[in-house]
Each structure stands twice: as C-alpha cells, then as structure tokens.
C-alpha cells in the first residue's frame, strides 16, 4: 500500500506502540483485500463493544491500546455493551460479568469514544452525510448508512473497526469504491396487496429472504410501497445483514443511489431478475419460526400447554427508536403484561431519555414492560436464563441469532402481534395465511 507521511509515521511507531499495532493490522488487512491506499475518515462507529463478542482476547487488545494513550481522532460512537449501566443488577446480571463489561467500557472511554452504547447510532445523533467515507461497523448499521443514506461504509470486522477508528483511516476496498456499489440482482415484488408491508415484521422477513438469497451481493428491490418508514427499512436492513452478509442494497425510488432501476445498476443490463411473492415470504417466516419445536420439550408453565405459550416478547433489535417506543406505548396503554410472560424492549439510553420526557416510558413501565438500555438480550451474560423458552419478536435478527445464543424458540409477529402476545401470553394470529 502507498502510505502518506503521517500514515508511515504511525506504522514506524513515531506516535507509540498503540498506533503502531493498529496501523500494522490495517496495512496487512488492506493488502489482503487489494487496497492501494487509505482513505481519511471524520466519523466512526465501533461494533466491538460487548464482552460476549470479543471476550478476553479483545479486552486485552483494547487495554493495550488504551494503556498506550491511543485516542480516537474523530467523533466515534459505539455499539451496545453486555450490561445496562444503571439497572444491571435488577436485570439479573452478576457482579463478575458486569465488571468484565466495565473493563472494556473504561478502555473505550479512555480512548475518547462517545459512550452511546447503541447499534442504531443513526437514530442517536450520528447521522452521516451522503457520500461521506465512514469507519463504521455493526452489520445492520453499515447496511443502513450505505443504502438508506448513501454514505460509504464497509463491513469492518470487530477490532479492525477499532484500528480504523484510532488511526482515522480505512483501507480503500469493497463498498468504498463506486463500481462495487452497483446492484447485482433485481428482486421484483409481485402479488402483495395492502395487507403487506404495514409493519416492521414483514420487512424483517423480506430482508432475511433476500439476504439468504444473495449472501454478500448487492440486491436491488423494486416494488416496496412509498409509505415505507425509516424504522421499517431499518428492520429490513438488519435482517438482510443477518440472513446473509448484505452490506448495501438499493430500493428503487427510495434509496438515494437508486432513483431508477438503471441508476441502481449503474447502467449495467446483465443482471438477473428474481420474482418475490407472498408465498415466498410466508414460507420464509415458517422457516424462521422454530416455536413449534418447543412442544417436544414438554414445557408447561403455569398449566399452559407449551405450544402457543409466550415466555418472552422482545422488541428493539436493532435498538428501538423513539417512534417505536411510542407505537408500543399507544398499543399497550391501559393493559398489562400477563403474569408468566416477560416483555422487554431494548433501546439506547438517549432514546429512553426522550421517551421519559414524553411520558412514554412511564406508560410502558406501568404496563409491566422492561426497558433495557445500553445492551442487548443476545449480549447479556451466558446464563441462558431464557433457555428452552419461547420468544415472540418482530426482528429477523433476533430470529437468526437468539435460538443459538439464548437457546430459545422463536415466533415472529408484527409489533401489534407482539403486544397481543405480551398481554395475553398466547401467540397472536398469523397476519398472512
């Protein structure tokens, strides 16, 4: 790679061993992926924040950097950690585990990282500009800012994201390069009536379907309704990055690099067209729903038969926005979560504070909803407190990961269906049959 004077100095150790180590990693990674040079960044978001994602090895790496007085040179936000910094005890976490998280938090704060602890930084004050070069990680967030905003980001691996953030540089590869932002496959939605795409849940299922179909290619989607909201496209983005490794998608007439199909494909006409029908998404949802397997475990809680009984309702993956919190509050106001069922919403402390100001947090809390901030149910201690239980969720990302991490069964539902499940303790009716 060709380095500037400043980059070469970092590599040579002029600014200390911390920057040197980070730069060594970046040069090696850049060369592996064919980068000729680095691009300077003015905006970073770090993924490697939860103890349950980078463990002791990652913690030691961070402490090495922090102990060598490394500071991030640009505003840098960061992902959820493995605890709610205020209510970790009430949420059942052990002192030992909370302190493992705190070690990492301390290292990041020493490096000057802004402690947002959220996986939706684009709804928490870090909103990039069109075309801006970003050092971002977190699969849902990278996909969102690349696609919905048209900023330039790549799926930086955990710890490489840290190295990029401390050096203020990203290797020029992947989706930083204009040609690599061209659409690869066209997905045309056909046969969907107005009962579809009114809720984040349909977007989650579609996202997972397309992610699994393209893996790491750039899908172009034609046929989503004009009413598609930011939270709905957020759900799509997260699911596409979980079902596959999608880093950039184009929605024709909606995302900024795709005013037309032709623009999405940068004039290229050799693309394949795939038709997506309601039957495809109903089949996809059946695959993600694992709740029917729960009955074989002979679970019975409070006399309920296991099938159809809801142990936990989970909303907020990615972290719920103010608008999502408001939507749930409107649906649940005056009702209460059923005994024997939990209802958790995970969000950032910033959104939570806004919800407090608007009286929304109070409504949720009076209705028996647990609001967990700074963290994620899939990044809490490996206590498996929900083991063998059944989760109802509107998130495709939860449907992908929670069965493996939390050892739970999944039933996907709309936001309204999630609230129904929480107050009745029973599965909601299928929206699409």
């Amino acid at each position, binding site marked *: 790679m060709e380095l500037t004077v400043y980059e070469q100095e970092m590599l040579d150790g002029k600014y200390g061993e911390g920057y040197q180590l980070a730069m060594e*990693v970046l040069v090696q990674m850049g060369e*592996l992926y064919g980068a000729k040079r680095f691009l300077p960044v003015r905006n970073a978001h770090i993924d490697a924040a939860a103890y349950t994602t980078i463990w002791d090895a990652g913690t030691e790496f961070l402490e090495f950097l922090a102990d060598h007085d490394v500071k991030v040179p640009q505003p840098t936000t960061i992902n959820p950690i493995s605890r709610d910094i205020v209510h970790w005890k009430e949420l059942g976490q052990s002192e030992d585990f909370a302190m493992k998280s705190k070690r990492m938090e301390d290292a990041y704060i020493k490096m000057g990282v802004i402690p947002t602890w959220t996986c939706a930084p684009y709804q928490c004050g870090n909103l990039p500009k069109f075309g801006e070069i970003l050092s971002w990680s977190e699969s849902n967030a990278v996909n969102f800012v690349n696609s919905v905003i048209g900023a330039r980001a790549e799926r930086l691996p955990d*710890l490489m994201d840290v190295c990029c953030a401390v050096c203020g540089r990203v290797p020029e590869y992947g989706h930083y390069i204009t040609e690599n932002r061209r659409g690869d496959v066209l997905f045309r939605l056909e046969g969907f009536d107005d009962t579809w795409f009114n809720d984040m849940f349909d977007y989650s299922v579609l996202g997972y379907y397309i992610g699994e179909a393209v893996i790491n290619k750039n899908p172009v989607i034609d046929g989503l309704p004009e009413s598609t909201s930011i939270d709905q496209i957020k759900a799509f983005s997260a699911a596409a990055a979980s079902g596959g490794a999608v880093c950039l998608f184009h929605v024709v007439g909606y995302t900024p690099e795709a005013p037309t199909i032709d623009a999405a494909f940068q004039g290229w006409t050799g693309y394949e067209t795939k038709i997506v029908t309601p039957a495809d998404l109903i089949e996809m949802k059946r695959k993600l729903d694992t709740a029917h397997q729960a009955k074989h475990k002979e679970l019975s809680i409070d006399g309920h038969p296991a099938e159809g009984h809801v142990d936990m309702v989970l909303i907020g993956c990615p972290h719920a926005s103010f608008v999502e919190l408001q939507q749930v509050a409107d649906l649940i106001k005056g009702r209460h979560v059923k005994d024997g069922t939990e209802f958790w919403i995970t969000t950032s402390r910033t959104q939570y504070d806004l919800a407090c100001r608007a009286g929304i947090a109070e409504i949720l809390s009076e209705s028996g909803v647990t609001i967990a901030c700074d963290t994620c149910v899939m990044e809490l201690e490996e206590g498996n407190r929900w083991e063998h239980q059944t989760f109802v969720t509107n998130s495709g990302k939860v449907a992908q990961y929670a*069965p493996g991490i939390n050892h739970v069964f999944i039933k996907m539902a709309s936001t309204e269906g999630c609230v129904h499940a929480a107050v009745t303790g029973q599965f909601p009716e299928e929206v699409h049959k």
Partner: protein
Amino acid sequence: MIIKDYGIIVPGTVSAKALASDMPLSFWGGVDVETGVIQDVHHDLCTQNMAGKVLCIPYDRGSCSGSGMIFEMIRQGSNPAAILCIEAEAVLALGPVIGKKVYGRSMPIRTVSVDVLEQIKTGDTVTFEEDSIIVLSD
C-alpha cells in the same frame, strides 16, 4: 484430489479432517467460543465441533463480530485448524491476523472455486501444502 488453483488469504500449512457444509455461517451467534461447537439451529452443521478441523464453508455471513469470536477462539485454542471457502471477507481474516501479532498463533485461510469446495466432504483429510491443497477421501 490435488488442488493447484486456489487463493491464499492467510498463509500457513496444516493437515486435518474436514468439516464441510454448503451453508454460510455467522461465527457470532453461530459458534460456542469455548468449545468450537456450532450452535446456529438454522445451520446443517449445528452441534458439530469445528475445533481442530478444516472448516469448509462457502462464505461467512451475519455479524461483524465474527472476527472477535475467531480471535478469542485462537486465544483459547478452540479455533478450526484452517478455513477453506469460496470468498473470505475481512470478518474471517482479521482474527488470525491479530492472533498472530498478539498471541503468535494464526489460522490459515484459503479460497477455492465452488466446484472444488462441493467435492470436499466431512471426514476427508485436507492438507494445505506450500504449493497445493491435497484432499484424501474418508
């Protein structure tokens, strides 16, 4: 089978039994970091252990945290002996790159075409030589 046409993402030689699937895998959420056992219920290798094996998968997918998982697996010794895939994005390569710097331990990664990868079955012996990959059927 002797393979001459391959790419080297992370260098190194190794010989071990294959653990093979045609499904992509997310290391975060998909693998138990202490044992190397695959825990993704949607994956056909679920409950199989990748530690010490040559993991043959087409791609990784999902979370960017896969790299942190592989780095910790290298620290603990629960990592695969090597990865053989069609495309190795940076999430797979970063763990061995940092592992080599911090702990002096790496994990070779090579890429082959889909036609070659499909011929490798679980239980085959896969050897990364300096100038070839040799696959002996189980």
